[in-house]
């Protein structure tokens, strides 16, 4: 589904991603871990098409389409969803109205007719229940005055409504208490299918107890330095990142 080849990106003069390779297939859940400043959130931003990043080298393909050639809205319409680490507040725009607009735009791009009001309402109710999202929040202004946890849950609700192929979740677990974490994880688990894929960006192994990944990758200094299965996450939890850093220093000096 998603193929990333030798991806380099920078902000201004500073290179952040230094050659990322990643293959994500339908039905898979990948976790990307790594210390602060390793480039995890930057990878998410580059996939979504954030303008302040300049891609200097490499390719990103989504089901045979060149993602890097597309505007952010077209990437979304093709099925890329980014659950934001810090969801934005938009006063006066109702959550539901926003979702209706988003869904119509995506459907229009795929040459599907817009849902009728009745169909849309039905879908909204279903998905609200599925991800345990409070109906009151659905009718409020988009994220305005929401708590941190409510904002994250709203991201999962939007994910449920828009049914993307590829969901990139940028530290969705950060700032959540145990109950909220459970609800968010349950939501994601219910949405997992053979047709979609998830990339979970996280600091902590904790999330991966709830959402069990097929693969775990460690991002460090703009590169994926190690990949493995869920055992890798446990190993990291136990040993921290320092042993990896040490190992890398040894390897790099041996290359030189």
């Amino acid at each position, binding site marked *: 589904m998603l193929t990333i080849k030798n991806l380099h990106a920078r902000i201004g003069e500073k290179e952040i991603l230094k050659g990322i390779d990643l293959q994500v297939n339908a039905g898979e859940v990948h976790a990307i871990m790594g210390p602060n400043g390793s480039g995890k959130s930057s990878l998410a931003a580059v996939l*979504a*098409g*954030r*303008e302040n990043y300049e891609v200097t080298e490499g390719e990103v393909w989504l089901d045979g389409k060149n993602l890097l050639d597309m*505007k*952010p*809205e077209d*990437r*979304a*319409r093709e099925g890329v*969803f*980014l659950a*934001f680490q810090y*969801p*934005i507040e*938009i*006063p*006066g*725009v109702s959550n539901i*109205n*926003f*979702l209706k*607009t*988003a*869904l119509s*735009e*995506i459907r229009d*791009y795929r040459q599907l007719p817009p849902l009728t009001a009745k169909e849309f309402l039905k879908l909204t109710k279903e998905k609200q229940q599925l991800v345990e999202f409070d109906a009151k929040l659905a009718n409020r*202004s*988009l994220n305005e005055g929401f708590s941190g946890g409510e904002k994250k849950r709203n991201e999962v609700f*939007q994910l449920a409504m*828009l049914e993307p192929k590829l969901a990139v979740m940028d530290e969705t677990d950060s700032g959540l208490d145990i109950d909220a974490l459970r609800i968010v994880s349950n939501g994601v688990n219910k949405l997992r299918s053979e047709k979609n894929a998830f990339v979970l960006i996280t600091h902590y192994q904790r999330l991966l107890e709830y959402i069990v990944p097929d693969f775990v990758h460690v991002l460090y200094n703009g590169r994926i330095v190690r990949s493995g299965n869920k055992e890798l996450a446990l190993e990291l939890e136990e040993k921290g990142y320092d042993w990896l850093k040490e190992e890398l220093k040894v390897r790099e000096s041996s290359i030189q």
Partner: protein
Amino acid sequence: MNVLNCNFADMDNDNDILEQLASREYEYGFVTDIDMDIAPAGLNEDTVRFISAKKNEPEWLLEWRLRGFKAFLKQEQPKWQNFNLPEMDYQKISYYAAPSQKAKYDSLDQVDPELLRTFEKLGIPMNEQKVLAGVAVDVVFDSVSVSTTYKKHLNELGIIFCSISEAVREHPELVKKYLGTVVPHSDNIFASLNTAVFSDGSFVYIPKGVRCPMELSTYFRINAENTGQFERTLIIADEGSYVSYLEGCTAPMRDENQLHAAVVELIALKDAEIKYSTVQNWYPGDKNGKGGIYNFVTKRGACRGDRSKISWTQVETGSAITWKYPGVLLQGNDSVGEFYSVAVTNNKQIADTGTKMYHIGANTKSRIISKGISAGQGQNSYRGLVQIGSRANQARNFTQCDSLLIGNNCGAHTFPYIESRNNTATIEHEATTSKIGEDQVFYLNQRGIDTEKAIALIVNGYAKEVLNQLPMEFAVEAQKLLSLTLEGSVG
């Protein structure tokens, strides 16, 4: 007295995405060719007499016009505004134009098809459907009303809704009693000019205790080249009555600036309520500010009776310069004045708008919600006066004045004046300034919404409190207009 001037024109420079708010061409740019009956350009006493004669007016009205003309000659251009007022050559303007087919029509079939096509392009709802939807449309095409619908139904309730020329003929006692009593002939230079040369406009009278069952609606359209448009509207709500009046307008594209100096007077007697809504979309000029309408309007309402209420709602998206302060004289005890405004400026547009609330009676209340939106190189000023008189015990005012900036080259300014001569009054003023952030736009982009739609959503959300005051159908139209005005503003 409190004067606050905030200029946020040059905030941070990181918003490249928000910079290109400047490419949309005006959609309603076309000229309808109808055989015009136009007065030669120029302004003197003879012009005033010509107009009055052309309209077969009674002597008292001509005299009033002439008083207005004399006052006009004595007045000077205002100098307090926060923009450069272009030099105005009043001798180059033609002060009268009327479609040559003056007869009133029984059905639309008889109306000049060219005219109908114009209405169609504008989407003016003169068709059956709209009438069925309950809107009586009094269309002012240049200066003379050509069609009044639903009159009969209104007649049965004793409601008078007609052109002001017709009112002068049919209901002279009402016109004579109220015309010029809220905006005097010498009020300001543009109001005086209007008094002297006003062409036509609407007249509404709602009798005692009658609740007008439908929104009364007038569409204005400036059509003849170089023709100043001087509308005069007079609305009287007698004791215990209610009326909601809608005014909306578009204009064809042209190169020379056009002066529009309308006057609107509202009178609410005891326990009466008037709601006056405007959607203004005149030609704003091109990207460089060439052409475009000068919209210098005097709008004022008088809450004459106790417990009366007047509410102004305006959505101002057009014109090169918008200069208007719909105000309320709160004369009756317990009377209420409201002002809800959204003003958008894009490219080189200028809006200097706000309200004046004069608290005269006891327990009078006023509420002001102003939302300014600036994009491109637009300049947006809120200018408001809240005046509490010595007899206005327990008067209350609440003012909220918000500014939204799109891009880095626009400006937002706030000039609130507060004058209180009564220490039992409560006056509150809140103001905010914000910018549409790249983060907000990107968030919406990431959900499949393109940048223009994203801006439209954000702006409509921002203006919601005011848009909610508009009647349903108008609100939808206004939302579209806001989006249209800002389209191309972000690239």
